[in-house]
Each structure stands twice: as structure tokens, then as C-alpha cells.
């Protein structure tokens, strides 16, 4: 039954959230009906026989294909090509975002920082252009009735991942994390170069720099870089391991310390005619310190729980 649930869960991953649960219930019911009809349910427990279930799942098809068959009737890109289309879009988007972020970080390191607004619009324009080009190519392939066989010709239901697999890497979330960390590194390096955060108090004022500790900025950039390296390593391995979970959790927690100390420094610095309110300062310092402790604790607990789950699964 566990294999059946893994299969149904995998199908659900490719379905729109709105219909997911309903289709999953129906699919589960259908598969059990099929097994029952072929007298392949255990008479006592009502559980399916594993061999029969594996054969049935192979016959019904790869979870991605089953999910694709629930798509709309008319398609710009049909169920046959859609899985490949999403792969191409996803990989291309990841590469594009990564290239832009690396350019941003390189700019911060070498001091040739581009105009951020122009840079952002360029990045968005390039991404949309890429997406449009991929859609057009796949729409043409669809019209030409091109059939592309993906690797699941000999897929084995027994290889389906666990429903709650602590070692699994969620590609999109993973790359969002890397992108965010690269932005943090870029900001810290810019801050390290100029000795603080450049801010504009009002539209008529010139840019002023809130001075920040260069040591803390470098520490934040370095610890975030550790997380990026770990994330890239994990992506290449396609799995979290115990040591990567622990190092990542510790680096994540440790990064919170310089970041919060920098925030406290920034808040306490007078900006133009705005003086920090002395009465509020102790309260804000306490609030940020508590925030820092909470973030550190959450990261360590999260890493601990994930490690425990991984160890328990052996």
C-alpha cells in the first residue's frame, strides 16, 4: 500500500493544486478497483500484492504522463511535450538567473557594479525572451505532431521517492535559496567596499553612507558563501547528506549573527536630520537580539529534525 501511496503522491506533484486531492482520491480508488477486479488484493488485509501493483503501475504509466493526461483538451503544448517543456523552461530559467546573479556578484567584487534598475530590467527582459522563444519552439513542435520519448520507457515504480523524503532536493526552492544568498553576498560585498550601506534619506538629499563594520559585512558574506557552496554541492549530488545538513544549518544559524548585528548598527546610526529615538533604542536592541536568537534556534532545530529523520530512515 505504501508503494501505491508513493505513486499517487508523485502524480499529485505534477497536478494543479486546485484539483490535486480530488484526482489523487479518484486515482487511488481506480488502482484498487483494478487490483480487486483482477483478484490481486489480499483477501484478509485488503492490501495489494506488490508484484501485481508494480505491473499495474507500469501499465498505467509514469506519474508525469498520468498527470499530463488530466490536462485541458486543447493545448498550445500538449501532454506529450509538456513534461519536456517544463524541464527546458526550468533549467533555462535557473541558468539565466544564476548567470545574472554571478554577474552581479562579480560586479560587486570588482567594483564595476551596473545600474541596478537597468540590470534588473535586462534580467527580466532576457528571462521573458527566453520563455517566449521556448513556448514558440514547443508550440511549433506540437503542431508538427513531434513525439519525443523521455527516459521513462523502463521506469520502475519501486524507484519512486518516499513521500516525505528528508534527503530529497526541491530544485526550485533550492535555487531560490541560492539566488537569495547570492544577492546577500553582493550587498555585503558592496557594503564592505564602501564601508556601509548607501541610502537616500529623501529625494532631494544626496546619497549618504550608513557606516557599518567591515568585519561583520565580510563575515556575513563569507558565511553566506559557505551556504551557496553547500547548496551547489547538494544539487550536484541530488541528495542531502547528514554532514551537508549539519554544516548548512550551522552556517545558516551563524549567518544570522552578523546580519542582525549589522541591522542593529544601522538602526542606531543617525541619518541626516533623523536622530534615533533614545527611548526606543533599548527596546529595538532587545527586539533584534531576540529575533537573532530565534532565527539561530529555528535553523538549528530545523537542521536537527532533518538530520534525525535522515538517520531514522538509515
Amino acid at each position, binding site marked *: 500500500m505504501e508503494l501505491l501511496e508513493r505513486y499517487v503522491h508523485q502524480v499529485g506533484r505534477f497536478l494543479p493544486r486546485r*484539483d490535486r486531492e480530488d484526482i489523487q482520491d479518484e*486515482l487511488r480508488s481506480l488502482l484498487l*478497483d*483494478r487490483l480487486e477486479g483482477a483478484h490481486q488484493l489480499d483477501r484478509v488485509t485488503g492490501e495489494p500484492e506488490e508484484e501485481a501493483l508494480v505491473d499495474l503501475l507500469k501499465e498505467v504509466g509514469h506519474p508525469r*504522463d498520468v498527470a499530463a493526461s*488530466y490536462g485541458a483538451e486543447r493545448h498550445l503544448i500538449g501532454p506529450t511535450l509538456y513534461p519536456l517543456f517544463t524541464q527546458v523552461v526550468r533549467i533555462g530559467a535557473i541558468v539565466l538567473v544564476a548567470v545574472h546573479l554571478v554577474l552581479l556578484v562579480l560586479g560587486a567584487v570588482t567594483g564595476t557594479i551596473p545600474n541596478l534598475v537597468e540590470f534588473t530590467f535586462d534580467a527580466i527582459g532576457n528571462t521573458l525572451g527566453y520563455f517566449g522563444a521556448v513556448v514558440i519552439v514547443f508550440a511549433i513542435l506540437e503542431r508538427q505532431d513531434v513525439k519525443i520519448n523521455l527516459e521513462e520507457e523502463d521506469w520502475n515504480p519501486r524507484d519512486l521517492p518516499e513521500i516525505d523524503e528528508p534527503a530529497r532536493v526541491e530544485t526550485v526552492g533550492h535555487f531560490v535559496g541560492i539566488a537569495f544568498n547570492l544577492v546577500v553576498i553582493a550587498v555585503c560585498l558592496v557594503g564592505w567596499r564602501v564601508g556601509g550601506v548607501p541610502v537616500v534619506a529623501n529625494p532631494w538629499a544626496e546619497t549618504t553612507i550608513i557606516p557599518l563594520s567591515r568585519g561583520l559585512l565580510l563575515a556575513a558574506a563569507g558565511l553566506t558563501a559557505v551556504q551557496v557552496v553547500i547548496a551547489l554541492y547538494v544539487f550536484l549530488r541530488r541528495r542531502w547528506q547528514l554532514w551537508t545538513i549539519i554544516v548548512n544549518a550551522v552556517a545558516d544559524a551563524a549567518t544570522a549573527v552578523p546580519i542582525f548585528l549589522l541591522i542593529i548598527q544601522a538602526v542606531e546610526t543617525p541619518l541626516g536630520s533623523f536622530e534615533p529615538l533614545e527611548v526606543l533604542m533599548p527596546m529595538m536592541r532587545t527586539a533584534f537580539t531576540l529575533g537573532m536568537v530565534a532565527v539561530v534556534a529555528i535553523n538549528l532545530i530545523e537542521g536537527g529534525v532533518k538530520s534525525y529523520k535522515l538517520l531514522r530512515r538509515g
Partner: protein
Amino acid sequence: MAETTEQVEKVIGELRRGIIVLAVLSRLSEPQYGYSLMQVLSQTGLDVEEGTLYPLLRRLEKRGLLESEWQVGESRPRRYYVISPLGKAVLAELVDEWDTIVSTMDGLLH
């Protein structure tokens, strides 16, 4: 020969896709769940894969031609589909169209 078989299979596939809606609507005057409907169709000589039938049932329901409800009184919950009043009206017209097509094709082919 292989090319002929391929072309024949392609056309048959298109023909079956066209008639399957009619076949499904015609068998749902009484409520049926997916697997029982597959068996009913199979017994009459029309084998339909679940990958085709289940999404089709959902689409027909979304178009208002079928109605469905989950029944939990049996060994496991099952979703039963039945033709809706709109579905009945559409089926009646489709049957007329079908008779016309059969008669026309009969004249063309024989």
C-alpha cells in the same frame, strides 16, 4: 506494410477518440464508477485505457454533461458518474448525428 499498419492505427486512434464521448454518455444513464464503466465498455467491445477514461469523465463533468458524487458506503470510497439533464439532451442530438454519419458512410463505403 509497417507504414500501412502505422497509418491505420493512427486513423483508428482518431476515430476512437471521436466516438468515446458518445459511448461514455450512452452508458451513464445509471450511475457508474470509473472501473465499472471501463468494464461495461470493454464487454461491449470498446476497450478504453484509464488514462483516457478518467480525465475524460472529469472533463465531461466540467462541461456539465455529467454529474458525480463520492459514495462511501462500499469497501472503499468511489466516485459515481451519471449523465446530467444537459448530457441527455446532447446525447439525443449526438445519436441523431451518429445515425446520419453511419448512413452517409455506409453509402460512401459500400
